[in-house]
């Protein structure tokens, strides 16, 4: 990272644990000798991430790797258990005052499910227009004009305002979700699987919308997806996560062309490609381990074809392997 200008957003050593305490019956059972204990999921384990102004960072990983938790921590929906978050070089807490409201609103989130994330009983004008009025960005009398403008930006007609979510298709609902986020004039969007629920032809339309909005509004994105093709298309830089840890990061092209970490390599190799016909699949072994009981050492070692004895015991550190590229693998030593 360039030392002269602080990144727009930075996470330093962020961890997040979810604890599930035993209920009353469980505690009694434990007294009586049952082997029960509180369970802790390490959703994020010491993750550091910096996103520069105007950059699109793609966050990729499989289920349970903590990518959504990370997105929620960035968007202030969740607080980290430990570690620090910085916005424009200052900690998140520095923006708690009333005068810094605009800075708090600057990070907005777009959710995965365009069906579940819109209130079915609200009209589009309320869904999109509520937040800007509450936060004093527009006067209540100006609301409809403003909503019409935001809807036009995402490629929808102002006539949609009076309607309810169920009257729209999946692609249009995605646009409404994007309009709702844009309505409070954010600088940074966290897109959590924003196109995963859409058909291929609609997915292309929404991806194009993201690319266009970035150019028009100078937005910065943290683009979370399990789809490596989508990530490759939109991102400048890619961060790969596995079971709560970052295993590799680097510029998109370099990372896809010469992945360093065995997991990244496997992930890229597994992606079905239209140009690979009747290929012989050579799958990677094993299941994704449960985050309740992650493997010791490198989390990937039980599935890794190149694992050494050391990988079982020692957690590999994320180290620079080339300018701008980080990887956490003992094989680089």
């Amino acid at each position, binding site marked *: 990272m360039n030392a002269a200008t602080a990144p727009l957003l930075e996470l330093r050593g962020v961890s997040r644990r979810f604890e599930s305490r035993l209920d009353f019956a469980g505690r009694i059972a434990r007294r009586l000798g049952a082997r029960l204990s509180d369970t802790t999921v390490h959703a994020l384990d010491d993750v550091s991430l910096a996103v520069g102004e105007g950059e699109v960072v793609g966050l990729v990983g499989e289920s349970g790797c903590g990518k959504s938790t990370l997105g929620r921590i960035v968007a202030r929906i969740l607080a980290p258990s430990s570690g620090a978050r910085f916005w424009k070089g200052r900690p998140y807490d520095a923006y708690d005052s009333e005068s810094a409201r605009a800075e708090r609103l600057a990070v907005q989130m777009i959710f995965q499910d365009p069906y579940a994330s819109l209130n079915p009983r609200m009209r589009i004008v309320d869904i999109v227009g509520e937040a800007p009025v509450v936060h004093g960005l527009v006067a209540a009398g100006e609301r409809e004009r403003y909503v019409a403008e935001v809807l036009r930006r995402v490629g929808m007609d102002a006539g949609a305002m009076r309607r309810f979510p169920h009257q729209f298709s999946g692609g249009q609902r995605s646009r409404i979700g994007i309009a709702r986020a844009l309505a409070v004039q954010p600088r940074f969007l966290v897109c959590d699987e924003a196109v995963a629920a859409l058909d*291929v032809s609609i997915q292309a*339309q929404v991806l194009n919308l993201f690319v266009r909005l970035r150019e028009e509004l100078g937005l910065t994105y943290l683009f979370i997806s399990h789809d490596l*093709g989508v990530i490759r*298309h939109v991102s400048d830089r890619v961060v790969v996560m596995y079971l709560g840890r970052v295993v590799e990061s680097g510029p998109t092209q370099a990372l896809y062309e010469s992945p360093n970490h065995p997991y990244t390599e496997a992930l890229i190799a597994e992606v079905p490609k239209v140009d690979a016909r009747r290929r012989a699949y050579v*799958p990677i072994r094993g299941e994704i381990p449960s985050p309740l009981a992650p493997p010791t050492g490198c989390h990937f070692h039980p599935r890794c074809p190149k694992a050494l004895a050391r990988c079982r015991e020692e957690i590999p550190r994320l180290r620079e392997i080339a300018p701008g590229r980080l990887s956490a693998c003992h094989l680089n030593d």
Partner: protein
Amino acid sequence: MSGEPLLRVEGLRMHFFTKAGVVKAVDDVSLALDRGRVLGLVGESGSGKSMTGYSILGLVDAPGRIVSGRIVLNGVDLATLDAAAWRRLRGNRVAMIFQDPMMTLNPVLRIDTQMVEAVLAHHDVSRESALERCREVLGRVGIASPDERLRAYPHHFSGGMRQRVAIAIALINKPDLIIADEPTTALDVTIQGQILFEMQKLCRESGAGLIWITHDLSVIAGLADEVCVMYAGRIVESGTVDDVLSHPMHPYTRGLLDSIPARNVPGRPLAQIPGMTPALLGLGPACAFRERCSRAIESCAVAPAESRPAPGRALRCFNPAA
């Protein structure tokens, strides 16, 4: 095989008769599948791909009804079957794998109960030999220590493992035909890779025919021998995977291929198909793709009939791309 394919579907129409009108979910679909081959059925939501699969298995519920067409499996016209014959067929000669294994496995029964039931329903064997068969198929779909796994409940398994169990149940009676409806859509990339690998191997070894229903052309590219592209209830283009994916003729197939991010320059706008899939209710006489099509001409006001532009290829388009 005396030229007769394992499965032949001719002019299949399956309509839903709703209060609002007739929905032509499957409209004049014809396809054929040989033993040991994989047919990919591709389309977006509402294209009728799943309904085609359900129709072949006789799983259409009211208000849906098969209006016309022939489904011939192993030389037997399935329309002539009575309920008892269907029961002997399903889960035995024909099996289905669904998208969500959490929906297809009974959460309150152990895996062994569910698997043994499938064997005993069709074969007069002892429970012990049924269990032996269960262990064998679990091993074949890549589940380690089958004995232990047989005594577990579905919630003990991860999504990928559950789907393997569902596949094992489908394979347990060595079916001739397997219909798989988006079985890897809910799974992670590395797990999807494993399942595709197993299915490919199983089909080659057992000689079963496989219909793989999906929205993902890239999965079809790696797995299938032939592909049928569906749009609004009709097969708009079909042929071998190499022909169709390398030289798409229908503008819809071409649009689908062009909108895949991996085939575009990163960061540049994707080639996109404008508009959205039409509602099937009250679809007019015109080609259903006409409104979204860049090559639409005047003749498209009437839906095109199927043409055979080359051996082994079928197409419904008046103005195909060369």
